[in-house]
Structure formats: structure tokens, C-alpha cells
């Protein structure tokens, strides 16, 4: 068994690198082989189901066309002027070595981004009442999709929104609303509470691919609805890993970061010790 402390330092460094890569990846051309971070041990004995309505199991999103990272939504989106300016500002800051504090970077639920282009494998659990999409190896994100005709009237807005689903033949149609306006589209743009996401998910006959077509409507950031097509490939059993974003709020992670939203400013910061001195976490009163 690998030592957890060494492993976690490696993982956090890797994730910081991924955040940085996100800014340049939108411009990147497809590199073939995709992007792999997790190296979890396999679990033997898992087989894909050919039942077209059984999505349970483990899946990994293939990258978007024109990118080598799965979590890039797309290279060229019909942004509103405000969203375009925001994305360009974020890229300019990144080019200068300054990162904007986004909900994703500051350990909040990732919502739309991970529902479309999950960075890590997606564990899907399913029963007659709901289907649950779980990302936990690089980001922790859980999306509960209830088989229902209507959203509840008393929706409490959330980062991940509220999702319902129905079957259209063997296509699962998922409808998500109820966002709190803090979820991220990508590392540059935060979408609004008006975001409406519709997904049509269909399984290939051999049970090895989920075709995921996502339509995003949010007049605050898009001039027209955006449709993104992805493929999620079946992965044989893989041991779940654990990612704990809040675990090491290291001082250097936040240095030089721009906090435009007060709620994102960290309360607790881990100060690195020197020599024999242990590192310590210190929290301020909110």
C-alpha cells in the first residue's frame, strides 16, 4: 500500500497542473490517446450489460473534439459578450500566472462541467427510482437523477441543480434546473441560475459506449442553445479512489489568486512548517 501522505501531495500537485492545463487545452488539437490521471487498481469480474436501459457500471468520458482534456466543454462556444469578456480575462490572468478563484478551484460542487465532461471515471448506480452519477477519483461530485415527470415546486437552488429523467424509447432524457448560479461551465465561466441542461443518453448495442448529448440553455452566457456530444466508454471494474479537495488548504495554492467573490475566500489556510516544525492549519472567524 502506497503511503497516503506522499500520494496525496502528488495528487494535489497533479490537480493544480490540470487546472493550469485547462486554460491552454481549449486551444489544443486532439492528441489521440486521451487524458488519463487515475491509476486505480482494476477489479476483475465486471462485464458490460447489453440491456439498453441499464447504465450501471463504470464509464470514462472521451475528450471533446479539438481537446485532449475531457472536462473542456468545447473549443468555440457562442458566448454572450459578457461571458466572452470573462473568458478572455481569465485566460489573460492565467497567462500572467494569476488564477481566478472559481467555485471549482475552491472546492465547491462542479455541477454542469462534471455532468458533461467528467475528468475521472463515472460510477453509475441505478434502480427503479433513480440513477446516480458519481465522480470521486479526482473531483467529488454526485448527481442524483430521479425518474419523475416534474421537478418539485419547492426546489432549493444548488450548485448541481435538480435532475429528473424519463425514458424516450431506450434513450434516457435528463432535465436539470434549479441551479444557484455558482456552478461552473469551465474554469473560466460561471453559469447563471437560469441554466437549463437537457441530456439525452443512449447506450450502444454492445454495451460499451454511452452516447451523451447535452444541450445547454443559459441566456446569461450563451447567445443560443449549445449542444455538446460526448462518448463515455465502458471501463472494466476499477477501484474507487478518494479525492478530498478541502484536505490541504495550502497557503501556496491561494497565493496570487484573485478572489472576486467573497464567499470563495478561504477561511482556513495551511501554513507550511520549516525544518522540524509541523505545518498547521489556521482558521479565521467568518
Amino acid at each position, binding site marked *: 500500500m502506497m503511503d497516503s501522505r506522499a500520494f496525496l501531495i502528488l495528487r494535489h500537485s497533479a490537480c493544480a497542473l490540470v487546472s493550469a492545463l485547462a486554460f491552454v487545452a481549449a486551444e489544443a488539437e486532439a492528441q489521440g490517446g486521451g487524458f488519463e490521471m487515475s491509476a486505480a487498481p482494476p477489479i476483475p469480474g465486471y462485464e458490460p450489460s447489453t440491456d439498453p436501459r441499464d447504465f450501471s457500471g463504470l464509464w470514462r468520458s472521451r475528450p471533446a473534439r479539438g481537446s485532449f482534456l475531457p472536462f473542456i466543454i468545447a473549443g468555440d462556444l457562442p458566448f454572450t459578450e459578457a461571458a466572452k469578456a470573462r473568458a478572455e480575462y481569465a485566460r489573460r490572468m492565467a497567462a500572467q500566472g494569476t488564477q481566478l478563484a472559481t467555485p471549482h478551484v475552491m472546492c465547491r460542487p462542479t455541477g454542469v462541467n462534471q455532468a458533461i465532461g467528467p475528468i475521472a471515471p463515472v460510477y453509475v448506480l441505478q434502480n427503479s427510482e433513480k440513477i*446516480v452519477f458519481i465522480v470521486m477519483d479526482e473531483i467529488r461530485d454526485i448527481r442524483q437523477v430521479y425518474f419523475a415527470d416534474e421537478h418539485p415546486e419547492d426546489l432549493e437552488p444548488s450548485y448541481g441543480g435538480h435532475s429528473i429523467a424519463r425514458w424516450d424509447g431506450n434513450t434516457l432524457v435528463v432535465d436539470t434546473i434549479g441551479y444557484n448560479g455558482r456552478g461552473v461551465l469551465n474554469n473560466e465561466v460561471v453559469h447563471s441560475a437560469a441554466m437549463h441542461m437537457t441530456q439525452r443518453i443512449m447506450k450502444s448495442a454492445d454495451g460499451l459506449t454511452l452516447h451523451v448529448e447535452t444541450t445547454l440553455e443559459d441566456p446569461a452566457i450563451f447567445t443560443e442553445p449549445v449542444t455538446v456530444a460526448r462518448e463515455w466508454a465502458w471501463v472494466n471494474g476499477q477501484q474507487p479512489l478518494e479525492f478530498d479537495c478541502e484536505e490541504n488548504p495550502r497557503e501556496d495554492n491561494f497565493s496570487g489568486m484573485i478572489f472576486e467573490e467573497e464567499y470563495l475566500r478561504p477561511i482556513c489556510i495551511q501554513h507550511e512548517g520549516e525544518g522540524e516544525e509541523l505545518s498547521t*492549519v489556521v482558521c479565521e472567524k467568518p
Partner: protein
Amino acid sequence: MRFRLSLLHGLVLTCAAGATNGEELSREAFNGIWLIAEETPALRTLDGEVPPLLPEATALYEEHQRRRANGDTYFDRATWCAGVGLPRLLIANHPFEIMVDKRQIGFFFEWNRWVRLVDMSGTKLEPYYPTSLGTASGAWQDDGSLLIETTGLMKETIMDHAGLPHSDDLVMTETLRLIDADTLEIHMRFDDPLTFSAPWETKVVYKRQHGARLKEDVCLDRIKQGLPPI
């Protein structure tokens, strides 16, 4: 190595004494949202005693209690919303959901949206590295109970709010049993020779939360509002 659970067989037989009262409940009857029946800030053995800590662990446990009494909670990762791990999430006063699937059993904890996946493939998984929730393998038993063995639990977490310590060598063995349709019991056994002088056991009861749905809990947003982290 196949997960034959031979080591645990005796434990299962011991626990089977409290089987459901004649009611046949399916595996799917475990599905639902559960909340601990009685607040449990400090774990105790089945006899109500403090767990059998070794001297060094006793000193650490007492130090944790002293520090909390003085308002110093930095020994507790919950202070900055890091994963509090197991068994603490199972005894926190926050609901969790169980979802039975053929390949995995999901535990969805409301607290900060933690997810525990218990592998049901029959292969006993070895931890890749220690984590707050560890690496869990499960198997259904003939009496309808669910046996879960968890290893690779990182020593940085504490086992309860009182600050009960453990080492990376902790092995947690749970037997989940439905007492009736609305009552879940988890019998827990803890083996950790670096912390305890002998294995010990405890039992926790949960009540089904009818009509409840888990909220999207964001610990960092909560502490920003001046609310307690857990």
C-alpha cells in the same frame, strides 16, 4: 484473493442472534435515507465502556478532549471541512442514504456530499493508499445481512467527535441488518493493534427518514456563515 470472509464468519454467527423478527426483507429494503437514532458523540463498547486504548492512544484521546474543551479543534479535520472518514460519518448526526446496486453499494452521506462505494464483486480489494473512507468490500450473507470489511483508513481522522484515535492499520467490520422495515442496525467491530489492546465492538441503530431527500451540503459555505462544520 476471493472475498470468502472466512475470518469474519464467526462474527456473522455471533451477530445473527439479533436477526429480523421473522419479517422477510429484500436487499432493496436497505435502500433509503437513514439517520442515527441516538446522538453518539463518543463511541463506546457493547458494554458501554471506553474502548480498550493502549497507553499512548489514551494520552492522545485525552489530549483531544482537553483541546476541544479549550476551544482548540485543530486536531479535528472537520474544522476545515476535510473528510472526517469512518466510522465517524456513520455516527454523525447527519443523514445518509444507502443505494443497493448489483456491482456496488453506495453510501451517500449528506455531510459535505461524501460518497462511499462498497465493492460487491467478491474480490477483496487491497487499499491503494489510506483514505478517510478506506477501501470496502462487501458480501450478502445467508441471513439477509450485509457484511462489509473496510481497510486503508487513514490515521489522520478521528473515530468520533470526542477524538478517539486510530492508526492506518484499523480494520472495520460492519454487519448491517434490518431490524424492521424502518430500523437499521450496524454492528461494528474494530481491530487495530497499534491503538487498541484488543478488538472491540459496538452497535448503532438508525431510523428510516420517510420522504426525505439529501440536501446538497457544502461545508465550506456553511462555515462561512458561522455554522459548525459538523
